[in-house]
């Protein structure tokens, strides 16, 4: 069982990020790290691939960034394909999906592709499904459990009410939620071994894509304005007169939480 995992490398959320005032996109010139959201996919892939299979990473990131890939390789992935090219600056979600689809084809034979439901920085939550569409594969979203049964994948798909049990033929793309599995910590030995694992760094041209169709040139989306989110309003304080629970219940059911 070979699994490909899409892993996004993002600016460290612990450091305050900044937007480029020109393009209104996140600045990504500093060091990037593995998006925590993707550590779940990596762990799931390692568990599904077991000893007989192989886990391959694909990532698109600026400046040949490999730091986040090294973390995932240290966890146990075997190899990676990294797409890095100045021409990709300004790529929107669909372009990202097209590029990653090509990178996945380059990664070799696979039975399953995993991605996170949404990234921690961009969080459009659209890239995985677009990759599936580009590759002509079925996709299952919001997986909170994934098992393989012969030539099918079984997914518990999180819904508002609970979860659906979905069965889908392989190969397929599954996007997983945080908590699908508990990601392992990279070990010292894993970190040292990751140094010598292959990272195949490619450009847009290497993937057979036309630079005119990616990046700013190819973007079908444009960020027109970025506005500060409205400051959170002060909450309502309910004094407990012995009946306060009724108002709490009423409030929650108005919000359709219960």
């Amino acid at each position, binding site marked *: 069982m070979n699994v490909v995992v899409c892993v996004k490398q993002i600016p460290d959320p612990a450091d305050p990020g900044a937007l480029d005032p020109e393009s209104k996109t996140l600045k990504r010139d500093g060091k990037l*790290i593995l998006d925590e959201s993707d550590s779940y996919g990596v762990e799931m892939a390692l568990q599904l691939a077991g000893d007989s299979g192989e886990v391959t990473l694909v990532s698109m990131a600026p400046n040949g960034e490999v730091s986040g890939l090294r*973390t995932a390789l*240290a966890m146990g992935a075997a190899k990676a394909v990294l797409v890095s090219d100045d021409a990709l600056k300004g790529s929107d979600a669909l372009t990202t999906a097209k590029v990653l689809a090509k990178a996945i084809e380059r990664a070799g034979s696979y039975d399953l592709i995993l991605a996170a439901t949404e990234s921690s920085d961009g969080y459009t939550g659209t890239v995985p499904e677009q990759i599936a569409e580009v590759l002509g594969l079925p996709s299952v979203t919001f997986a909170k459990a994934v098992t393989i049964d012969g030539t099918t994948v079984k997914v518990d798909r999180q819904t508002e009410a609970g979860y659906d049990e979905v069965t889908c033929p392989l190969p397929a793309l599954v996007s997983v939620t945080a908590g699908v599995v508990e990601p392992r*910590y*990279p070990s*010292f*030995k894993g*970190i040292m071994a990751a140094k010598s694992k292959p990272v195949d760094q490619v450009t847009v041209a290497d993937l057979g894509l036309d630079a005119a169709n990616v990046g700013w040139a190819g973007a079908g989306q444009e960020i027109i304005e970025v506005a500060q989110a409205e400051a959170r309003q002060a909450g309502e304080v309910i004094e407990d007169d012995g009946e306060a629970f009724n108002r709490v219940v009423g409030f929650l059911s108005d919000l359709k939480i219960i």
Partner: protein
Amino acid sequence: MKFTDEHDQFRSAIRDLVEREINPHCDTWEADGIFPAHDLFAKLGQVGVLGIEYDQAYGGQGADHSFTLVMGEEIGRCHSGGVAMAISVQTDMATPALARFGSHELKQRYLAPAMAGEMVAAIAVTEPDAGSDVAGLRTKAVRDGDEWVINGTKLYITNGTQADWLCLLARTSDEGGARGMSQIVVPTDAEGFSVSRKLDKLGQRSSDTAELSFVDVRVPVDNTIGEAGRGFQQQMAQFQNERLIANYMSAANMRLALDRTIAYVKQRRAFGKTLADQQWIQYKLAEVIAEVDVVTHYNHACAEAVVAGADPFTVAKMASIGKLKCGRLNREVADLAMQFHGGIGYMEETWTARYFRDSRLISIGGGADEVMLRIIAQLEGISGDPR
């Protein structure tokens, strides 16, 4: 210190582990007066934290001392000094002599499982009547055929109620003073061994500290670490590891405390502005930040000296200077953190209260400040060169 990408990766793995597996449980463990050492050490073992510099043949990582520095700095960020101390006992206080001088069989039997986190280790040196003056210890091991017969008492022993084995320092001849001592591995299931009591302490409350009793405890003479009669010297070498790791943890812990204090004074308002807007607070914080930065870099210089293979006297002097400075500074930082938090800082619900208690130990444990001064004076040739 030049950190590579591998150092950064290792640092971030340990930081995640501390934040996910340790910090959320600290309140409970503090209240319980103990933490689940076997559980936690198994997790640390998987990441390779428990045998960083030890031989790969026994499951160690075979890394150099710079990775111990990284580990110490990250474990130092635990929200409970007790847990950090207990981990460092396993990694750098109870095991270095065994790794350095132990026989193949002894390392297989005790070091390998300690590195995997399957066995908990403790270091048993201090006694009711001998702490700073290690040469005054009285616990005795008398040879009977192929066995040592051990009698005595050990006090303030970290991991004491949970340990599977002890690195015991005992007298094995009647020579007296620093001569005629040996380090012996004592499994805690040996007959005649018992935990007399678990001690109630000011700080480090999540760590179990115990008084241990030995009544005709028999262990094989093969359990001797290294050479019989060389125990004192081997223990003095082991103390250097103990002090270095304590310094690394302490500096990181101080920096964390300062960062948390800065975050607090930036949002707490008084007299129409934030506390951070008061110049007194800015300068006081800047002052200690400067001092913490200096000891942090001194620690890095110590680690570099160890990596470069500096002679034991140089390492001993640097470790002692670092420990003296970290111990004193930690008390100052804890006082400042408490002061700038005001009333809430005095409350048990705020981290400052625990830190205030925990911070006091480093000037006492592993050689008190005055013992550090004594060593520095000796090594500087002021009080007569011990060489």
